[in-house]
């Protein structure tokens, strides 16, 4: 008589086979990921306020929960639960209530396919530390991430408010434009990995070089596009508070507003984890091979988890850092960056990488150190070209600085400047 699957002792290095075991472990992973994710999103609101304060020479929240202000997110949450909820007149009630959830859920679903550590050996078998290692993982992410725009658009439309409506309109235009670049910038990753499963993409990176070195241009495009997808500065036109009050969530109050707020940070966490996985090797510990080879141990799991969190945290910090450095784009700048720079560059880069891979295959260089070095050299050339030739007042126009003397002379058609005269008021 066969034993109950939970009582069976199996090889800890072998994949899980039993159906019951699989479901139980999936539920455990779901609960853990959900909890950590929610707490992280809440703590991010604090992190954003703290980092913004530090960058502006202030101290940030330090009243609730000691000098660090650690309880500030909890206090904000309680406050938002207590607050009165207002409903705008003539709002489309079902959509108005649905929109916050629609913007929050897609960001969270994406997490289910991101592997966050090396497999964990247990007495019931080897547990892959990803909620669902879908064979189409990568396409799934693109499909779900593009749903996020519906929350914003519906919120803008259902509010019956012109500011909200403009915010929703802008966000639909922005997200549609940048989704194209986002999707295309990841095609080189798939070309290199030869697979769309997230775990396979990580494996390919740990065996050669991280994609951030192999595919630097794709990484930069992906980074900018995910800034736009997460509605972060400098792409926060949907909520542009200086012109649209608060954009698409102008009419929202209490916990509904809070949900939009959490959704923004959820999007940041997701985008950061996605970037870490696609371009920084996911949970791979750099310069070592032992962490992604069997036999797997608990120590390896913890270390790789730490590595993954570090990479994700780094990107989260960069997101916040950029927000408190760069001013918002004008609408035409946003559109011209999306359509005239990002998409052509992404397309050209796909051709470049595909051609390179084909040539390397033809001359018989297999994926390995030599392969990576060639790609790295190619990327450095592409970046230099980009910075020196293309990006001089063309990527974001106008990017101004004081003209060089030579240029002024050329513009005036003279050879020397006339002697500078003192101003009247001086």
């Amino acid at each position, binding site marked *: 008589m066969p034993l109950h699957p939970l009582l069976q002792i199996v090889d800890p290095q072998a994949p899980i086979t039993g159906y019951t075991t699989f479901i139980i472990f999936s539920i455990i992973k779901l609960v853990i990921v959900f909890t950590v994710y929610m707490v992280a999103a809440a703590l991010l609101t604090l992190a954003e306020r703290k980092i913004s304060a*530090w960058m502006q020479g202030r101290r940030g929240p330090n009243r609730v929960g000691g000098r660090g202000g650690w309880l500030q997110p909890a206090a904000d949450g309680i406050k938002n639960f207590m607050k009165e909820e207002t409903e705008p007149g003539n709002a489309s009630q079902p959509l108005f209530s649905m929109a916050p959830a629609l913007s929050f859920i897609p960001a969270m679903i994406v997490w289910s396919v991101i592997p966050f550590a090396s497999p964990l050996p247990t007495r019931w078998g080897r547990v892959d530390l990803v909620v669902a290692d879908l064979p189409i993982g990568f396409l799934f992410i693109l499909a779900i991430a593009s749903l996020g725009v519906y929350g914003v658009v519906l919120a803008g439309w259902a509010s019956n408010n012109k500011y909200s409506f403009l915010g929703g309109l802008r966000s639909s235009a922005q997200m549609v434009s940048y989704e194209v670049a986002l999707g295309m910038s990841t095609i080189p990753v798939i070309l290199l990995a030869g697979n769309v499963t997230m775990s396979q993409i990580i494996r390919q990176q740990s065996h050669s070089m991280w994609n951030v070195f192999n595919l630097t241009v794709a990484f930069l495009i992906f980074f900018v596009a995910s800034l736009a997808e997460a509605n972060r500065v400098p792409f926060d036109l949907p909520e542009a508070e200086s012109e649209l009050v608060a954009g698409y969530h102008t009419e929202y109050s209490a916990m509904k507003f809070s949900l939009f707020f959490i959704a923004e940070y959820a999007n940041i966490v997701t985008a950061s984890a996605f970037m870490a996985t696609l371009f920084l090797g996911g949970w791979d510990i750099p310069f070592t091979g032992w962490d992604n080879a069997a036999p797997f141990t608990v120590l390896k799991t913890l270390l790789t988890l730490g590595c993954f969190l570090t990479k994700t945290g780094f990107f989260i910090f960069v997101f916040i850092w950029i927000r408190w450095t760069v001013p918002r784009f004008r609408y035409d700048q946003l559109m011209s960056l999306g359509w005239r720079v990002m998409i052509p560059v992404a397309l050209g880069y796909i051709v470049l990488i595909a051609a390179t891979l084909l040539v390397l295959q033809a001359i018989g260089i297999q994926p390995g150190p030599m392969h990576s070095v060639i790609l790295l050299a190619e990327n450095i050339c592409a970046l230099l070209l980009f910075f020196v030739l293309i*990006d001089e*007042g063309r990527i974001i126009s106008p990017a101004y600085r004081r003209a060089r003397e030579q240029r002024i002379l050329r513009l005036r058609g003279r050879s020397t400047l006339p002697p500078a005269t003192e101003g009247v008021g001086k």
Partner: protein
Amino acid sequence: MAITVKRVGRPVPESSYLKATLQGMGRTLKYMFEPKITIEYPEQRWELSPRWRGTHRMLTKEDGKARCVACGLCPSICPSNCIKLVPGEDENGNRYPLVFEIDEFRCIFCGYCQEVCPEDAIHVGQHYENAEYSREGHVYDLERLMAQTHPVSTLWDATDPKGE
């Protein structure tokens, strides 16, 4: 002589947005690790200048009465008309204020009252926390002005412009 106009080096679109952004990010990162300049108000106080002109204070004589002789100079010089003075006279012919009220809500804290006072009686002081629950609460009567204990302002001195 003809008026000359200052020639400004006009900015032209020739800069790289990426380079400028990276420079800016370097700057914000630098600020992140620099000492913070916040004064955490209820616990820490800002050190007021000796010339700070804030809440008024009426100085007293040795016998505890106000130094004011109700000459009427401060209400007449007050630009915001916030001093109310009703003079009285005792049996010896000494003038004293029957009513002396300053509306701190209307006051613009110019310090003219202190400057004009011949008896060194009314002063503006180094104090700024005047919050009240009503407008009437801002009207300080003579007792309240005499009860203030904060240091008084040393006004700007023409013979010592830098306060040395």
